[in-house]
């Protein structure tokens, strides 16, 4: 028994008033399920709408040039299957067909690709959000195993509809990363595995989706380069743009040797690399912090104020405590002293907002402490420094630095500081100029304590002296304020009992 059913436009995503650019069937045609019936075009893509079931075309309700929207009637089909004739068939409308809907609207599920030994690997970063339009090869999440961290690229372009993961989740090969509404791109060239949500799409993948574009870009040949046909062929095969090569032949003719030398250079890096030089890729942390540091250094007008502090009192106290078995580094004293001084100079515990016109002065005292790890520099944040005892601070520092070295810290643990201290005191050096950790406005650099001769009016006394360097953002802090901050810090550290005030 044959019944006439309506075929309407399914939900194909962002598709209000989409133009019909081609009608692929005519009245009387027999169409198979999934045969394309019309072609639609919006400003982003061209898509073919498949028949939801097989049958004979009874009527065609759209014409080329017409704009249609979701649920617009496209054709009526004399179906070959038994179903109530009054039933309106969208190619996949209706709640029961929700799963199918995902298929025709081209929802692609992106899963963790098989890129080696991935079992229960932690998601350390999610680089995109629901609703984002992402391009093919754009990184979507970062995974970190005990061996390496890796960014997973999107296998194709589209709009993210769902991200079931959150930072800290552990994933394995095949686990869902996100769902996206694909744009028309060849999914097969993707790096990551794609699992389409319904069999229809899997079917399409097996047949290899056919790429049809709206326009053929026919580039006219007008080579500026002086090269014979055989060299042009070789260049094409090597994927080289001849206009980048300087020819060494007569009258600048590009010779095969020129082309080969050029390719050798490309393969070996950006330029010719001498023997005895090893290419070492930067660690992920270095790549990230490098970018940030370059930005801070180039955008902030730095002034660095130097000072040396007499820390005899502090050293005496430390020696005394050490004898009792309590180990305290100078850093915890410095942290407390800094908080003391920040309370007097609130503009140093602040950040400049994005407009560059307002200072966001912090009411809490969180300090970033720059730390060295095998992969590079990180700056974990020690919160509410003013409320913690010296011993608590020492314990926290030890714990954080151990974790930073061994397994890594969460992003949250490295955010929210108002001021940063970078201490190289344990290593050496007389002074250095620290780079402000934007959006903060100041940073204190601490070098190694030295015994310096200090004139007390009668004689030179060997005195434990701590070299300090304060870099501040001159857009926010004037030189006088900077000098005052340093002088006050000097006072507190010199008279270490003041941290108790």
């Amino acid at each position, binding site marked *: 028994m044959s019944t006439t059913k309506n075929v309407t436009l399914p939900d194909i995503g962002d598709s209000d008033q989409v133009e019909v650019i081609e009608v692929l069937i005519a009245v009387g045609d027999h169409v198979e399920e999934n045969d394309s019936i019309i072609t639609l075009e919006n400003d982003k893509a061209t898509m073919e709408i498949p028949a939801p079931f097989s049958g004979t075309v009874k009527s065609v309700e759209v014409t080329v040039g017409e704009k249609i929207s979701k649920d617009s009637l496209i054709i009526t089909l004399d179906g070959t299957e038994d179903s109530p004739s009054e039933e309106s068939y969208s190619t996949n409308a209706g709640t029961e067909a929700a799963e199918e809907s995902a298929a025709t609207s081209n929802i692609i599920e992106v899963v963790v690709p098989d890129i080696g030994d991935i079992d229960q690997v932690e998601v350390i970063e999610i680089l995109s959000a629901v609703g984002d339009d992402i391009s093919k090869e754009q990184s979507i999440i970062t995974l970190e195993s005990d061996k390496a961290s890796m960014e997973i690229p999107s296998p194709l372009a589209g709009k993210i509809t769902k991200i079931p993961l959150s930072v800290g989740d552990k994933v394995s090969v095949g686990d869902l990363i996100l769902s996206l509404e694909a744009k028309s791109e*060849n999914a097969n060239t993707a790096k990551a595995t794609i699992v389409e949500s319904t069999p229809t799409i899997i079917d399409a993948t097996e047949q290899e989706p056919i790429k049809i574009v709206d326009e053929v870009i026919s580039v006219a040949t007008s080579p500026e380069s002086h090269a014979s*046909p055989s060299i042009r*062929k070789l260049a*094409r095969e090597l994927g080289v743009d001849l206009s980048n090569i300087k020819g060494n032949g007569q009258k600048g003719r590009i010779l095969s040797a020129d082309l080969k030398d050029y390719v050798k250079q490309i393969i070996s890096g950006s330029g010719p690399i001498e023997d005895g030089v090893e290419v070492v890729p930067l660690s992920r942390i270095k790549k990230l912090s490098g970018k940030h540091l370059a930005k801070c250094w180039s955008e902030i007008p730095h002034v660095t104020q130097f000072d040396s502090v007499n820390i005899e009192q502090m050293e005496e106290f430390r020696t005394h405590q050490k004898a009792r078995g309590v180990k305290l580094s100078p850093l915890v004293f410095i942290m407390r002293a800094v908080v003391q001084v920040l309370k007097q100079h609130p503009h140093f515990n602040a950040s400049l907002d994005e407009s560059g016109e307002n200072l966001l002065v912090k009411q809490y005292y969180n300090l970033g402490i720059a730390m060295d790890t095998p992969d590079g520099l990180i700056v974990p944040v020690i919160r509410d420094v003013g409320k913690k005892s010296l011993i608590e601070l020492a314990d926290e520092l030890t714990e954080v630095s151990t974790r930073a070295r061994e397994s890594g810290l969460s992003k949250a643990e490295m955010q929210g500081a108002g001021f940063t201290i970078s201490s190289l005191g344990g290593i050496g050096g007389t002074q250095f100029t620290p780079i402000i950790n934007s959006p903060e406005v100041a940073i204190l650099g601490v070098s190694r304590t030295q015994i310096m001769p200090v004139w007390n009016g009668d004689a030179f006394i060997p005195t434990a002296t701590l070299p300090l360097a304060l870099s501040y953002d001159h857009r926010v802090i004037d030189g006088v304020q900077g000098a005052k901050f340093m002088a006050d810090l000097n006072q507190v550290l010199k008279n270490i009992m003041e941290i108790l005030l």
Partner: protein
Amino acid sequence: MTHTQVLVIGSGPGGYTAAFRAADLGKEVTLIERHDNLGGVCLNVGCIPSKALLHTAEVINEAKTAEHLGVHFEAPSIDIDGVRKNKTDIVTKLTGGIKALAKARKVNVIAGYAQFISTNQVSIEGGDEVIEFEDCIIAAGSQVTKIPSFPFEDDRVMDSTDALELSDIPKRLLVVGGGIIGLEMATVYEALGSEITIVELAEQLIPSADKDIVSPLFKRIKKSYENIYLNTKVTKMEASKKGIKVDFEGKGAPETDTFDKVLVSVGRSPNGALIGADKAGILVDERGFITTDRQMKTNVEHIYAVGDVVGQPMLAHKAVHEAKVAAEVICGHKSGFDALTIPSVAYTDPEVAWTGKTEKELKAEGISYKKGVFPWAASGRSLSIGRSEGVTKGLFDSTNGKILGMGICGTNAGELIAEATLAIEMGCDMSDIALTVHAHPTLSETTAFAAEMAEGTITDLMPPRKRK
């Protein structure tokens, strides 16, 4: 339904080259041809038969002019069946050769008319047989453009295919369209005894070439042909008992005249719209051309097109090169069509050939150029073969002397143009050509002389005065 890796539609020079190259690169290939013989227009009703007849014409004309050399031949008696047989034998030999080559390569040849029914299927002859392909190369060619109001149903109104049939030798023949095809057929029929009238819409014969290199041909045939009407339109054509009555509109042309036969050669139209391309989603423009990129890919990923169907110039040698590119790209090679020029040749007497840019094009594009013209009246070789009307013109970049184009009119111009084409591809400048030792006395010397004229280093003539 049969399945093939590579399907080629059309077996002209583009089609058979594509099929053979793909087969040589390891593909299983099916070649579809709608006509009985392989070879397409070129071998069956184009380049080859016309050249066979043109050779006959040449022999007749040479014999005629031998009088000047002190050799007298009686007026020839023409056995038209014999002329036709020679032509047919050559065509048969060549098309048979293609067939043998196809067989040797195990190319599956299917006779029939292919129509796309989907992005990866064609039907043959109304849908009885369906062939499914992985990749397809469209080499469907072109056909004679027919003007609907002309009475083609009358045997006396011919297109180029009919004219090559040589069913008889009309007393008075009108050729509508003074392009390459019309002028070649006029050459044949004139040699066989017809009185020729040519009517051309443009202001010169072979409108795509520069006027100065067509001029020697024009001057020669103006004397021997009955009439050449330029800037003239055929407004009406009627078959009558006496002949084909044709109305003209143009200065110097009579209002009407009656001819025994008319050859309409006003161009060729691509067959892009005749193969159901829309069913495969292939873009075809309003003229019937299929657009491709430099890898000969259409807008549909796995469908390629080559030859006349992808654009001008509709020449076999262009199709052959494009066909190799398409076949190689399908086989995974990083091939691409990046020829700088495609030479054109009219096998008239004298021949007209040009390559690279014409002077008109350079002017239109605003490219500053230097010209070197060598008249063959100063060529010993040309004079020794009894001809003096030829000309070789070189066009060079005025900033660096690089060759931009060349035009030649004269005996064997079609052969001579190859040197300039290679020079363009190699990026030669006028000194490279002038300093290359050319054998003496040859017609090929004229290429070097043209370069010397541009350089001012010529000694066989007075060098042109340097214009400041």
